[in-house]
Each structure stands twice: as C-alpha cells, then as structure tokens.
C-alpha cells in the first residue's frame, strides 16, 4: 500500500548571510530558540501533521545535518514504516556524481526514493523557516480543490511584496500568474516555499524539466511557471500564523526576541499537541545561583546563571558568572560570560568566552555577531 503523502525538505542551503554561524553548519542546522535547530520546525510539523516519511535533501555541510536528522527518532519518525532519510547529493549509476542544481533538481534526483513509497501527494518544504503549521489541513484543501499544486502563501505588506515570489490569484485562490520579486507587485500573497503536489503530475514535470538545458531546475522559476503555462490547477493556501525566514543575523536575532515578547509561535503549547521536538542534550539541570537576576528570558537545561540576564535567549551549557550582565542577547551552546563582563544586543557563537570585565556592544544600536 502506498503512502498518502511523502514530505521532502530542502535543506541544502548555506545561508551565507548568517556569516560565521554557517561557516561549518548548513542553515537548517543553525540553533534557534534556546534549544532547537531551525529544521526541528518543519520536521516537527511533519510529525504532528501525521506525515511519517520525510526526505531531507542536504548538500552544504551535509554530514552534521545528516547526523542530526539521523533516522528521525528525535521527531518520533522511527516506526517500522516511518523514517526521516538524509538524502545528500551523490554519485548515481547512470550519470555519475552530481550536485543538486536547483530545488526541482534535488527532488528530481530523488524520484526513486519517492517512488518506493508510491505516494499520492508530495509535500515540498524548506528547511530554513520558523513556523508551526498543520500540513494536513493544507492537504485537505489541495484535495478539495482537486489541485495539481497547492502553494502556501503569506499575506505580506505591499512594501515587502517585492522581496518575495508573489502569487497572483483569483478570489477562489486559483493562481493565474507567478512573479518572482516583482518591482510593482499586483498582489501581496507571498510564497512560503511550501508546496503540495499531486505526485503523478509533479513527477512528469520534473522529468521534463531535467531535460531542459536552459532551466534553473527551480520550483519558483521553472516548475510553477511551466504548470501555469499548461493551465494546471494551482491554488494558493493562505497561512495566518507566525512565519519567519531567518536569513540574516538581524532576522535571526529578531526571531529569537519574538519568542520573549509574543505567543504567536505558541512554543509553550497553549494549543495542545503541537510540540516542537528536538535533540535531548543530556545536560545537567538548569541551576540558578544566589546572585542571579533574570527577567524576560528563555533559559534551558544545562545553563548556570549567577549574573544578570534580561531579554535574552540562553542555549544549553551557557554559564553566566556573578556580576556579569547579559542584555538582549542570544547565547549559543557552551558560551561562557565571565565575572563582570557585559554584553548587549549580540548573538554569540558556540563555545565563545566573553572574558572577565569586558564590554561588548554597549551602545546596542545594531545587532552584532560575536565569533572568533
């Protein structure tokens, strides 16, 4: 029996604008929210949406990310018929070694993986985004509309629209035009890079696209326009929750701060049964010292805090000595802030030491990345 749906997460990107944070790690493996890596969000969404076969397409620094994904146990994707599979670009019998030339090519190169499960539908996701979404509801919409492709969209402001791929759709959601980063946007429905395809149709388009020499082998640039040209049924599916592409140091910092100030992402599971699963780091208990002062912060297990912390997000193994002051910061795993040190509005990379009595970014005008 075939699976109803298989998910494929595009996780090959480097995320160059994250600077030193992605020097040795693919963007989906970048830490977020005091405990998680970015890819935990799409993977947990899959698990919570009842999708149990997930391919993770890796390219840049695929070893760390692939090891992290493992067989999917962290997200409960480890039954006898469920898994997360690491699918790096590889050497293949008929064509030899190739990289993934584009998002569509990455899926094309793994048609044999998808075929094994004989699915009706394929969900294509990006591994770079922070959000909670029930893909099952989107799938219901896809089926109801008898669509060939359903594209999740976010209603952005008209100013922002020029930064996104914009879907121009009729009232019923049927897409008649797609414009990549339009100068004069006609609509504000921005593609979130989340697609559900009827697999039979997608498979045909992927195989055709692979033969075209002038194609970028990209969903936005090639596959979606080709489908529109053939008058296929493409529908926009509007998403109303919190969604963030954390592509820059500034946006990564902001997304971490969002966790302190609002409950839109609902990390604390006020709406039941939508936990974000992640690695269990086997840390010691979180211990708060006698001289600690903590306000408006997220602090996780394995931290030791004996100084002043406000408006900050602390990952496992962070140590804050007494008389130290940490304000509006994101401290990645293993960061040590020594006695009397002060640090403001910064992201501090893994295992950095902020030495005793030093002072970093005290003017706090712009977010800085502290990394060796």
């Amino acid at each position, binding site marked *: 029996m075939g699976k109803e749906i298989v998910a494929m997460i595009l996780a090959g990107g480097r995320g160059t604008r994250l600077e030193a944070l992605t020097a040795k790690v693919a963007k989906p493996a970048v830490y977020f929210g005091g405990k998680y890596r970015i890819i935990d969000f799409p993977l947990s969404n899959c698990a919570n949406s009842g999708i149990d076969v997930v391919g993770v397409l890796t390219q840049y620094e695929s070893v760390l990310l692939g090891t992290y994904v493992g067989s999917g146990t962290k997200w409960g994707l480890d039954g006898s018929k469920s898994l997360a599979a690491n699918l790096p670009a590889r050497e293949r019998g008929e064509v030899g070694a190739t990289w993934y030339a584009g998002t569509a090519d990455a899926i094309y190169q793994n048609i044999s993986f998808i075929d094994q499960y004989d699915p009706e539908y394929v969900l294509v996701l990006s591994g770079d985004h922070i959000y909670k979404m029930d893909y099952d509801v989107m799938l219901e919409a896809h089926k109801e509309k008898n669509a060939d492709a359903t594209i999740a969209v976010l209603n952005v402001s008209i100013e922002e629209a020029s930064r996104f791929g914009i879907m121009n759709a009729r009232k019923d959601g049927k897409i008649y035009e797609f414009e990549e980063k339009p100068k004069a946007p006609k609509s504000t429905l921005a593609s979130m890079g989340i697609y559900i395809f009827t697999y039979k149709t997608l498979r045909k388009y992927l195989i055709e696209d692979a033969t075209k020499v002038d194609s970028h082998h990209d969903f936005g640039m090639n596959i979606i326009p080709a489908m529109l040209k053939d008058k296929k049924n493409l529908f926009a599916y509007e998403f109303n929750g919190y969604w963030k592409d954390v592509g820059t140091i500034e946006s990564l910092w902001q997304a971490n701060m969002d966790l302190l100030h609002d409950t839109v992402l609902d990390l604390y599971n006020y709406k039941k049964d939508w936990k*974000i699963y992640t690695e269990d780091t086997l840390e010691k*208990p*979180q211990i*708060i010292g*006698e001289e600690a002062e903590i306000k*408006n912060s997220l602090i996780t*297990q394995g931290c030791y805090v004996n100084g002043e912390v406000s408006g900050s997000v602390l990952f496992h193994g962070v140590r804050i000595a007494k008389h130290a002051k940490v304000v509006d910061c994101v401290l990645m795993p293993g960061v040590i802030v020594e006695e009397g040190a002060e640090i403001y509005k910064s992201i501090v990379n893994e295992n950095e030491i902020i030495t005793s009595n030093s002072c970093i970014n005290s003017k706090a005008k712009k977010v800085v990345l502290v990394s060796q």
Partner: protein
Amino acid sequence: MKKTIGIVNLYSNVDFMGLTKRRPVASVSFLGRYGLIDFALSNMSNSGIDAIGILIQEKPRSLFKHLKDGHSWNFNSKAGGVSLLYNEKYVNHTKYNNDINNLLENISFLENIPSDYIVIAPAHIITTIDYNKVVQAHEKSGAEVTMVYKPILDANISYVGGQILHVKKGEVKAIELNKGVKKAANICLETYVINTKTLLQIMRQAKDISTFFTLKDMFAYVCDERKIHAYEYNGYARCMDSINAYYKYSLELLNVDVYSQVFSNKWPIYTATNDTPPTKYLKHSDVKKSFVSNGAMIDGTIENSIIGRNVVIGKGAYIKNCILFNGSKVAGGAVLENVIMDKSAKIEKQIKLAGHMDAPLYIQDGDIV
C-alpha cells in the same frame, strides 16, 4: 572479556507516603527532570553495562512510561536492552512478592543473556558508583560476592533499617542491622557484584530455607559460608528512605559543593526527554539558588527550590524551600514555604501554605487548593 549484566532492584520497604501512592519510589521525580531510577541506570550505562533487568515490586505504570525501550540510557536495543521483570503471580502477596521469587519467575532473563557477573543496585540510594571498578576489584579478590559500602558518620539518622558491615582486611565478616544507635558505621549501599553462578545457587538455596527470604536476607545468611569481598566507596551517596529524606537531600543538592560531587561531564545522568521548550522567565521573575526545569513559566519569586517541567508561577507568588513537580501551578500572590507539590497540583488562591524543614507539607497530585 567477561560479561556483566545489571539488575536494578526496586524491592524495598521504602515509601514516600503520598508521593508513592501511585508510583514506585524509582519513578519519583528528582531534581525537576530526573526519575530516581535514572541514577542507577546511568551508572550502569556509564559503566559499560548494556543489558539491564529491573526487578519491579509494584505500581509499574509510570515506570513503563519512563523507561520505554531504554533508548534514553544508551542501552543497545538489540544486543542489550532493558527487561522489565514483573512478578504478576505474587504481586498482591507482600511476603511472596520478594526479589528472589521475582527473579525465579523471570529466570529466562538470566538464562537468555549469558553472563559471568551481575551487578545489583537499588534505585532509592543515589550514588555515582563506577560499577566497572567494583567488578574489577571483585574479580581480583577472587570472592563470589562483593558488597559495596561507605563509611559514614551519621548512621544514627540515615540508612536506619539498613545494614552495617563489619569489614576486616577487605572482607565482610558480619552484617548487622542499623538500629540508628551508632554514628560511625560502614553502611551497606545495597550494591553488589555477584558471580552469576553463585546468584543462581543462592536463589535455589533460599528456597530450601525460607520462601520469604529476600536477596538481602540471603547475603546476610551466606556471609558465614562464603567469602564476601568488601568494596569501599567514598563518593556521593544518599539514602532516600522517606519523604523527609527525599526532601532534605534534594534541597541539599542546591549547594554547589554537593552538586559538583554528583554532576560532572565525565559521568552524565541520562533521562527520558520530554520535548519541553526552555524555561520562560517573565517580567516579575526573581529566582535564586534553584533548579529550574524546561517548560516552566515564572513570574514570581523563587528561593532555594526545585521547579519541575511545565510549572507555572504567577506574578508575585513567593516560593521558598519547595519542590514543585511537573505541571504544578501556583497562582500570583500565593506564598509557599517548605511544600512538596505533586504533579499537576494547583494553588489557585492567594493563600499562605507552610510546612516544616523536617516535615514538608505535601499536596497530592492533581489537587486544587
């Protein structure tokens, strides 16, 4: 290489009153994120033992849920693993429901995993013993049984009802009940290494003496007949033999010098993950000298306390010397001192509740006050 397997023995007379009404001592929450049994299991895991049997005395539900297939403690789920040894036949008969009868009922565990040595450890005595070292010393001694003991100076108030060992030249010469009279004593940590063959012999021998004999009784009995090696351990050891001891020793770990005896990067303590987000400290939070678990949301004052997962502390609440179990809630303005709040209990009113340092006030799981 010689093969060692582990047995965590949950048979004991210890109970924590309300805390163990529906769960065994082994799965009582400890330091916010552990179960008491995690220490014995982690010690076994860290000692390279990968096949474990757990002798379950009673109330196994929460234990099954916590342990699953032993994945969290690194036990290989195919080559080793955790076997839950439950004695359905005798569970309602206090005298027959003892560890020897349980092992005999579940003898296939010992038969199916061929081994040379067996390490037996309790769940309610918290230690960080490297069993590997004990096995090595056992092997070297040539004895059939090794008992681990710790020289202590407060035997008058701790391990009362436990066993005092009389040790001479590294051998156990006599075993005496600790009546709480002496202060200095070599106290038995109920941790043993025994040759597998010897254990099987002792179990059969026990049947000829008394059906009600436990392993502890048998070790005392064979002390005269066989050489018992004594292994001295001087690391952290605390016997959680009552709710008051549990409370006292839990809060004691908030002192850095005690804490650092237990937690080191070389000897991790494993537990089951709960997938809770980091602790959220809000605008009015003021937390000092405490353990705080993930998923908690804090907007009040906390001192010298242990806060479990998903605990919610309202604005202006004051918590001192308390242990709050997973999912408990304290409304803003409430004042709690020397209180143990069991799972999901709720303080909804702005009241003041106080226990005593030697006798904490216990609030039952799910209760609303």
